[in-house]
């Protein structure tokens, strides 16, 4: 029984394994701009979450694989990207602007006062 639970937990953990997307972070006087490379993620599989002072970027890879394909070489070997950032107090987490196009996520976080949990709307241009 306990072993079953341990196995189930391990499998759940394995499902949660994710790749760390490479990012650029640029700061100017008005705020911070973050770019993240998440190729293969369609717009509807992208999830952004701001909670307290934690920003989580997550995306699921969905490729159109032909039936019966066998991979012979894989550098992108996990179906998920995830990266977590800690925001500093002067950033206004409530006014995060997001754009997502061609696998590149662009976030704009303006500087302001307090932070509260909310989900970020995705605008695609």
């Amino acid at each position, binding site marked *: 029984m306990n072993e079953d639970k341990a196995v189930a937990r391990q499998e759940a953990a394995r499902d949660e*394994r994710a790749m760390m997307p490479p990012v*650029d972070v640029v700061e100017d006087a008005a705020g911070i701009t973050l770019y993240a490379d998440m190729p293969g993620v369609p717009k509807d599989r992208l999830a952004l979450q701001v909670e307290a002072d934690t920003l989580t970027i997550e995306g699921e890879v969905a490729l159109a694989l032909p039936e019966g394909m066998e991979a012979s070489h894989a550098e992108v070997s996990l179906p998920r990207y995830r990266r977590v950032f800690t925001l500093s107090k002067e950033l206004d987490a409530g006014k995060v602007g997001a754009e997502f196009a061609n696998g590149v996520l662009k976030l704009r976080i303006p500087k302001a006062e307090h932070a509260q949990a909310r989900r970020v709307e995705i605008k695609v241009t």
Partner: protein
Amino acid sequence: MVYRALFPRDVFADLDRLQREMQQAFDLSPSIRGIARGGFPAMNVGGTPKSVEVYAFAPGVDPASLDVQIEKGVLTVAGERKAEPLPEKATAHIDERFAGRFRRVVTLPDDVDAGSATAAYRDGVLHISIARKEAAQPRRIEIQ
């Protein structure tokens, strides 16, 4: 460009990975062009009995700048990704993303029909599909 695994620290998975990497380090490289891993764009290659499928993970690239060529059984993907212009008086805190010109090559199996290749760019992934020659496809032989 390396997309590293982040969560969690699964010891067995790490050992697996370590073993795989050791094996790769000691294997004779299958291609004269060196170890294929770790460049930009990251690439996945797979095959079905009817085709060879190549996925190049090249986010944020202008499709017009992409150049895909097949010559003598070698597939070349080349292009350029321009750096985002840094605004005035801005500071770059993290700079991990690739910028500049890139070129990667993949040696294709002998049985592909280079004339039948198709390429599509979607969600930052360039997908190239090359059909195998009819004669090379597996055929069931009737027993009489």
